[in-house]
């Protein structure tokens, strides 16, 4: 069972957790990750962060990432919520929440989904700084984090 939402409005971690565990006594562990907007990036203050995406591909890409996580680990439920539009420092951007019987599967799958989302899901961030607007550059460290899972699987 999975939930994937792309939305402008905020989300409530507690409400999502309650919805996930309600009535499912098989769940023994839930791991979650929340990504937030920071007020500084690459040495400049950030006043707003605007997230653009490719709607027709976003859902497909996230669905593929979650399917792969379900194939690799024993998962009971996965929720991915990603916001788009204009956000401000301290706002929530993304939620990945994974339920399994035991913690190992939930911890690993949660990190895997985030690492793949960072490099494969078609979202782009634009920052407003005192020097003007700028598109956020992709980081090599994100590529490395994502490729690590391929190495681990191959070895």
């Amino acid at each position, binding site marked *: 069972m999975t939930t994937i939402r792309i939305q402008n409005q905020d989300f409530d971690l507690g409400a999502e957790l309650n919805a996930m565990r309600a009535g499912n006594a098989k769940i023994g562990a839930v791991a979650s990750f929340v990504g937030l907007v920071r007020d500084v990036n690459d040495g400049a203050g950030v006043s707003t962060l605007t997230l653009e995406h490719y709607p027709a591909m976003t859902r497909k890409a996230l669905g593929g990432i979650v399917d792969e996580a379900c194939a690799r680990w024993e998962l009971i439920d996965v929720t991915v919520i990603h916001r788009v539009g204009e956000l401000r420092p301290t706002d929530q951007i*993304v939620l990945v929440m994974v339920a399994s019987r035991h913690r190992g599967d939930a911890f690993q799958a949660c990190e895997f989904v985030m690492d793949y989302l960072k490099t494969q*899901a078609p979202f782009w961030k634009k920052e407003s700084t005192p020097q003007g607007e700028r598109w956020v550059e992709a980081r090599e460290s994100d590529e490395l984090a994502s490729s690590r899972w391929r190495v681990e699987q191959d070895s």
Partner: protein
Amino acid sequence: MMVSVLYFASLRELFGLENEQLVLPVPADVSALIAALRARGGAWSDALGTDRRWRVAVNQELATMDTKLNVGDEVAIFPPVTGG
């Protein structure tokens, strides 16, 4: 053969274009499409250089230079993604 091409984020702004219909000779793959766009010169050849600071998706799936194109395909060209 007609395909539709979409541009996102910094590439959309650079080209001043969200999408267009493009006619390509058959058979065509992603590299033929990129070559046709580079031939426009200016921002097109600069931005779609061999440094690969761009990605291509065909019908909403990440593609490579040798991915084949068919009539009516939706091709998207965009910078490396920065979500999450």
